[in-house]
Every structure is written in structure tokens, then in C-alpha cells.
């Protein structure tokens, strides 16, 4: 008897163990290793044991480095700009295109293409299109007799160009999630507002958007986390240049490690990035908890009201 019980108690661990082992070896342990490496003055030609322990020196150096802060603000600016533009366009399109159309599934398929193909290829495509002589944009401009634009070689334009590529790739993500949220709204609420004489604009502002809000906020935060991970598209398009104008933190970490061979500093930078992402994740976590609790309260109140009605 006790044998069977022991087996039962062990069952969940048997299901969990393989995944837990892989994640511990190749995810948790490396992150711990990175924290340790951030306290070292370490370059790739040394073994980690030979590296000097320098305490918080890497963190202090970064904190006092202007170029680190420039990268930091480029990252924040990039993430905030792309996510807000994508949210506005994506949600706007979802509200406009929310109809039962025959061809809608084909359209959705075409819209997901940009986020399925490799970021490397996306970067390549846009690098080609922005090319000063070969690229289509500058060809069109010169065909129209307009001056060409240094899309990737001027620091202001380079930032805008990188932002546009990201918007092209990820707006569909917001669009699809917003559309799914919109189509799962209770039709009765929208119908009721229509009967009460609400204009389409009022329906959007007072019924649809508030009801979609929980999904939209989670979508927005997920996209924000992903925007901090973007690296390959920018690497192919500008490699962070010109100057530091498009050097977001993820790219700077990779360049510090592979080009400048400062593993300790790259590790310290990784930690700063992780802390930033942890804050966003925490906000998302707290929000969903609070929201779930609120929904549960509303549901409970609704159930109670129905019960009282029945009793009366």
C-alpha cells in the first residue's frame, strides 16, 4: 500500500523532472553564471577561473559611461515608440476590419507572414529596400525627381528606418490579438448599446475598448518585453550605427562580448537588462492577478443578484 502511495507522490516529479533538469542546466545555471561573470574582469581568451574578481567595478563603469546610457535611452525610445505605434495601428485596424468576411482567413494568413520569417531575413529585406542606390525607396524618390534619403547612414533616419521595419513586422501581432479579443466580446452588450442609439464611435469608446482592455494590456506588455529582445533585424540593417543611434542594449551586449571581448562588462549589462525586464514582467503579473480578482468579484456579485432575483 505504502509503495503505491509513494509512487503516486513521485508521479508529478517524474513528469516534471526532464524539463526541469534541462532548464536548470541550460537556463538557470547560465543565468547564475552570468551574475558571477559580471563581477569579473574576463575576456574570451581566459578561462573563467583565471579572470580577476573586480567586485562591482563593471556595474560602476557602466553607470558612469555616457555611451551605455545612450544605448539605454535608445532601447527605451525604440521599445516605447514601436509598441505605441503598433498598438494604435493594430487596434485601429482590428476595429475597422471586424466583420465576417469570406476572405478574412486568407488575409490573416498574409498578415502573420512578416512575424514568421527569420528576423535575419527581415533585416536583409529592409536593408535592401533602404539601399542608397539599389533600394526601391530611393529609386522611387529619384524617379519622382526628389532628393534621395540616407535611410541607414544618417542617425535620425536610421532610427526611424529601424522603427518602421519593426512596425511592419509586429503590428500584425497586435492586430490578430485585438481582433480575437473583439470577436470574443459578448454580442449582447454591443447589440444593447446599438438599440440604445449609441453611434459606432460611442460603441468603440464606451463598450468595445473598455471590454477589450484586459487583453490589450497583456498584449501590450508582452510586446514590450519582446521589443527589448529585438536584435537580429537591427544587427543586419545597421549593426547599431551610425554612431550609437540604433544600438539597443541587446545588440550592445552582443557587440561587447564578441567584438570588444569584454565578457564581464557584457554580463553586467545583461543584468541591467534583466532587471528592466523583470520590472515589466512584475507589472504584468500584478495586473493580471488584480484583474482576475476583480472579474471574480463581478461574477460573484452577478451570481448573487441572479439568485436574489430568483428568490424574489
Amino acid at each position, binding site marked *: 500500500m505504502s509503495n503505491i502511495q509513494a509512487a503516486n507522490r513521485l508521479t508529478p516529479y517524474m513528469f516534471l523532472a526532464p524539463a526541469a533538469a534541462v532548464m536548470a542546466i*541550460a537556463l*538557470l545555471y547560465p543565468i547564475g553564471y552570468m551574475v558571477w561573470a559580471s563581477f569579473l574582469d574576463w575576456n*574570451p581568451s581566459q578561462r573563467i577561473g583565471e579572470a580577476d574578481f573586480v567586485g562591482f567595478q563593471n556595474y560602476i563603469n557602466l553607470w558612469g559611461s555616457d555611451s551605455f546610457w545612450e544605448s539605454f535611452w535608445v532601447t527605451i525610445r525604440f521599445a516605447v515608440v514601436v509598441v505605441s505605434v503598433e498598438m494604435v495601428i493594430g487596434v485601429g485596424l482590428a476595429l475597422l*476590419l471586424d466583420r465576417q468576411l469570406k476572405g478574412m482567413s486568407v488575409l490573416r494568413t498574409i498578415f502573420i507572414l512578416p512575424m514568421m520569417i527569420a*528576423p535575419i*531575413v527581415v533585416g536583409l529585406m529592409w536593408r535592401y529596400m533602404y539601399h542608397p542606390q539599389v533600394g526601391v525607396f530611393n529609386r522611387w524618390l529619384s524617379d519622382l525627381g526628389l532628393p534621395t534619403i540616407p535611410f541607414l547612414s544618417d542617425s535620425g533616419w536610421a532610427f526611424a528606418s529601424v522603427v518602421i521595419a519593426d512596425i511592419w513586422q509586429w503590428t*500584425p501581432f497586435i492586430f490578430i490579438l485585438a481582433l480575437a479579443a473583439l470577436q470574443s466580446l459578448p454580442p449582447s452588450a454591443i447589440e444593447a448599446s446599438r438599440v440604445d442609439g449609441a453611434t*459606432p464611435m460611442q460603441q468603440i469608446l464606451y463598450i468595445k475598448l473598455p471590454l477589450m482592455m484586459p487583453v490589450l494590456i497583456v498584449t501590450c506588455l508582452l510586446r514590450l518585453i519582446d521589443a527589448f529582445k529585438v536584435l537580429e533585424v537591427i544587427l543586419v540593417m545597421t549593426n547599431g550605427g551610425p554612431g550609437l543611434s540604433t544600438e539597443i542594449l541587446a545588440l550592445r551586449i552582443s557587440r561587447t562580448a*564578441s567584438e570588444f571581448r569584454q565578457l564581464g562588462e557584457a554580463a553586467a549589462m*545583461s543584468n541591467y537588462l534583466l532587471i528592466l525586464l523583470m520590472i515589466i514582467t512584475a507589472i504584468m503579473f500584478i495586473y493580471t492577478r488584480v484583474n482576475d480578482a476583480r472579474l471574480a468579484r463581478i461574477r460573484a456579485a452577478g451570481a448573487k443578484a441572479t439568485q436574489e432575483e430568483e428568490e424574489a
Partner: protein
Amino acid sequence: MAIRPDDRPHPGFYVLLICLVFMSAGPIALMLMNSFKLNVDITSPTAGLLFMPTLQNYETALCEFLPYDPEHLRRCDPTFGRALVNSLIISLVATGLTLVLGCMAAYAIVRFRFMGRDAASFTTLIMRMVPPAVLLVPVFGIWNEQFGLDGTRSGIILVYVAMNLPFVIWILQSFIVQVPIQLEEAARIDGAGPFRVFFLVVLPLIQPGLAAAAIFTFRIAWNEFLLANALSDRNSRTVPVTIVNSITEYNIDWGVIMATGMLLAIPPILFTFFASRQIITGMTAGAVKG
């Protein structure tokens, strides 16, 4: 602006749709077109839609697999062909392993109450946000000093499985919750052990979830550049790594690079066309369940 579900769409609606399709697919179509052009046609200022399509770029990229020797090539560079084989092996094995480990872990978290369950569930959630760039430094050290896996395919597979597990576990949980528990109880009363219940009752019922998870994992493993670049050597390079290596050179061979880019993009494009429903279900399941 009179949008009502029952009235006929405004003509502007169709114009908007056509513009959106053009904007979404345009860049991809442009790349596809250029992959069939000779470099002279790509760079010449006059050529547009009118050109002589050629397979030369694809022949150059895939020369190793051709049964004949393309006449325009003086010598065959096997780099790309080798990378294609590596990419295929790495992404398929990584996807398979991630799915098996991931669905078992998701099942444990959803269906059992045990010590450490909350910790496991929370860790998975948190790990989803770790950017690959953060793994770069430790990967430099650990994979070659301690695991002795640098330059091997297994090393790359290991990091991909670990990286994708949190997402797969997270997504599959929302599918496993929906499996009616009575079915599992019935099977257990009939004398099936927990593993048989899992493999014969639960797995067949969550196939759409598995498909979505497989596509997402394959896509990440197939497309990933940064860690593959750090971990691979000449023999284990994947396709994204060879593409980036060939564009950092001063003179870009646009035709060949567009063809290789297209070859890299084809599997995800095929998945999208054949399984867009599963992809969308997966995306929504991932966002709605916070």
C-alpha cells in the same frame, strides 16, 4: 463611418484591405522577385518588373545538391548546403525534444498538486522574458569550458530546448486545462497508469496545442542567429549564421543572398499557409492566459 455588422462594407474598406495586403506581402514578394534576378538586373536603375527570370542564384546556393554542374559556377561553395543540413537537424531535434519535455511538464503543473508546483509554474513564467542576448556570455563560458559542447550541434540543440521550454509549457497548460478530467478518471478506473493516461488520453486531445507549440518552437530554432553564431564552428553553422557572414562583406552579392534568404523563409511561410489557424490559436492562448 457607419459600421454595423449587417450593412455592406464601405468601398474604402476594400481599398484599405488591398493596401494592407500589399504592405504586408510587398517586401516579401520583392525579395522573391529579386532572388530570380541576375545582379545586373537588381542593380540596374531601369529594370523593374520586366526581367529574364533565372535560377542561377538558387543554383549557386544549392550547388552541392544539384545532380549537374551549373555552367555559370567556376567552383561550388558547399557552405550553404552544409548549413541547410545543420539547420534542419538542429531545428527538428530541438522541436521534438522541447515538445516531449514541455507537454509532460505542463501536465504535471496542471493536473497534480505537489510540493514545488508553484515554484515550477512561477519559474516558467519568469523565464519567458529572458532575452537570448542575456545567455550569450554564459554560453561562451559554460558550453566550451564545462560541457565541452562548443562547435557541436548538440550544444546548440541544448540551448534551444531550454530557451523554448518555458513558452511551450506555458502555452500547453492552457490546452491541458480544457481536457475534461472525467476522461482521465475513467481511464484511471479502468486501470491505466498515469503515463498511459497521459500518452493515450491527454496527448491526442491536445493535438491543436501541440501543433501550435511545434510551429513556434521550430520557427525560433530555425530562425535564431545570435546563440548559433556563438556556439557553432565551420561544420555546425546554421543558415542564419552563413547569411549574416556573407552580408558583412563589403561587396554584397544581392542575388545569391536574396535566394538564400528566400530558402530560409520558405519553411515558415509554408507552415503559415498550412497551419495559420493553429498559429493564431497559439498566439491568442499565449496572450489571454496571463
